[in-house]
């Protein structure tokens, strides 16, 4: 446990006078837009929070916090004396900056992925398009038709970039590869997402999917089960959700981000950085479903490894096409 940074100490002292003078661990509050057990976006952040807790940090979290409630929840945590608040949704942007202005001694981080920061607000990147590129390589080998499908909750930049990266990679393997994109119109409606996936299959012969968002991804799993083909786990290992169809999953290790925030806070050096951890930092990767390992051609695995290495050494820059 590092001695509390002056800034954090002061906050603590204000909130709980009894604790004054005692060196405290960083205390982290996490605000989640969905349920912590979503096997995906929220779960990644939650497990990083648990890791901080294991290291001795005081932690708290709120699940299923709507945009309208976000500012209030953050203020609550400011009052409770937390010195780090992580707002894990890009839609918390304005709430985060507003509360941060009123609580200059608390450090914030939000999931903007656009590099927008403030003195006490960090942003952290989520370059899912990098692992999506690796998935694209797999798709190039595995897809029989070369027709790839992407299901987004809505066509937002981070989703869009994933689909495009996958397509770009697939084309390096199969020049005829093409991408069909559908916005399901809902982040949670599995039934509709499944039908959207089936529609892609029926009209375009799609047999390899990538999902962006929980509902769309679950839907793509069900569609793949029914129509045949493979799909990709979104921000979490989803092999268990579809052992026969989830060929690979994009996994996000948020520990580097949380570690960095805690470290900078404790050291008093936090100054609103833009944390960028991607494939090269082992924060993002693709895992292959062991149950389907035998369905993946060896050269695909080799090509993925090669591309991963190339991303890591900087020789490959994955194209980022947000819209």
């Amino acid at each position, binding site marked *: 446990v590092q001695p509390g940074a002056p800034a954090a100490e002061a906050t603590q002292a204000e909130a709980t006078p009894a604790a004054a003078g005692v060196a405290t661990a960083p205390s982290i509050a996490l605000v989640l837009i969905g*349920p912590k057990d979503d096997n995906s976006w929220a779960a990644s952040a939650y497990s990083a929070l648990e890791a901080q807790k294991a290291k001795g940090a005081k932690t*708290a979290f*709120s*699940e*299923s*916090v*709507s*945009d*309208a*409630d976000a*500012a*209030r*929840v953050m*203020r*609550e*945590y400011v*009052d*409770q004396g937390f010195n780090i608040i992580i707002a894990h949704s*890009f*839609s918390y*942007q*304005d*709430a985060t900056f*507003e509360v941060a202005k009123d609580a200059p001694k608390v450090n914030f981080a939000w999931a*903007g992925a*656009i590099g*927008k920061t403030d003195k006490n607000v960090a942003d952290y990147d989520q370059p899912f398009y990098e692992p999506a590129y690796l998935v694209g390589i797999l798709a190039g080998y595995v897809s029989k038709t070369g027709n790839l499908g992407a299901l987004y909750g*809505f*066509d*937002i*930049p981070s989703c869009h970039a994933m689909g495009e990266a996958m397509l770009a990679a697939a084309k390096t393997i199969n020049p005829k590869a093409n991408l069909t994109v559908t916005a399901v*119109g809902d982040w949670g409606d599995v039934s509709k997402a499944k039908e959207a996936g089936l529609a892609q299959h029926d009209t375009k012969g799609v047999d390899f999917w990538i999902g962006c968002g929980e509902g769309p991804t679950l839907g793509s799993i069900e569609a793949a089960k029914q129509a045949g083909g493979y799909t990709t786990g979104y921000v979490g290992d989803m092999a268990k959700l579809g052992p026969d169809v989830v060929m690979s999953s994009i996994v996000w290790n948020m520990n580097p981000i949380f570690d960095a925030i805690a470290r900078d806070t404790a050291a008093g050096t936090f100054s609103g950085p833009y944390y960028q951890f991607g494939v090269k930092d082992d924060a993002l990767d693709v895992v292959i479903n062991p149950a389907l390992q035998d369905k993946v051609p060896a050269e695909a695995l080799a090509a993925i490894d090669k591309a991963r290495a190339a991303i890591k050494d900087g020789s490959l820059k994955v194209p980022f096409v*947000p*819209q």
Partner: protein
Amino acid sequence: MSEAQSSGAPSAAQATIQRRQPRRATTIWSLLAPLLGALAGLLVGAFLIWLSGANPITAYGVMVSGAFGGTRQITETLLLIGPLLLMGLGLTVAFRGRVWNIGGEGQYYMGALAGTVVGLFFQQRLPGLALIPLMLIAGMAGGALWAGIAALLKIRFGVNEIIATLMLNYIAEYTVLYLARVPLKDPTSFLPQSAQLLSPARMPTLVGTRIHLGIALAFLLIPLIYLLLWKTPLGFRIRAIGANTTVAYHAGMNVAFGLAFALLFSGALAGLTGIIEVSALHTRLKAGISGNYGFTGILVALLGRLHPLGVLVAACFFAALAIGAQTMHSVYGLPIALAQVIQGLVVLFVLAADALARRYGK
């Protein structure tokens, strides 16, 4: 009075005297019953909390202090009362006219859209003093216009307003999403949201607090709605139309106008809520700017028995309950789902107790 009437007078007079006392008892009960109901709901909730291994007393302590425990908490509660009150008051007018406006969500979105567009366009050119009223008016117009589609469909084509407003919710939401993603998108980032409203376009706040003009407006509307419904001929007509449309029409009232007014008025207030919330809280147009007020507003209006003061009480109740429940989760670590269940239980029991009091209190 005629002879016949006076001959029957003693018993009638007696009866009139008898009437007063049970009435008073009724009002006491009608105040007490919801409280008892809330208590019963909390009691069942306590059992659930205990089942999940937590201490109900501590949890409820956190709940109460989360909603009322200090200046910040009370501020937050007030900030949430505002939109609930505005929505509930608008729907009170609609429901008094028996117009089932389920489209608060859509009207909220459209109000937010219209107001934000005005704000974005003029914020470099106009001072707040001029811009804010303009935005509020635009917000109301946006909401009213959206409700106006339902009104037109109802009056001109006989389309039931429940289905029309419900469908228009989805259409409004997708419309706003599109506009925020494409034409109104903030050019400085690639997120699907409009540019941010700058300070002239933000709700002015009471000095030193976060209480903003929107909250004041909501409270100001309480007496106004009361006046509208019970002290103006228009309000009378709306209530008459709600009671029996044929009779109202036959009595020479302009039923189409009354229905349209009720619907547009509630739409305007929903739109007003939308622009106020955007200007004060969300600061821009994007997905997820509605806190589901369109639906909670229905509960607020009806639990408030379609009376402005009742709506105020109901709005306070819902705001405190929502915030308290969330604090139980955020601070005390109770599962959010459990907090939601307790919320639902409390509403359910309040409703039942209220009904019991009305039935047997009489």
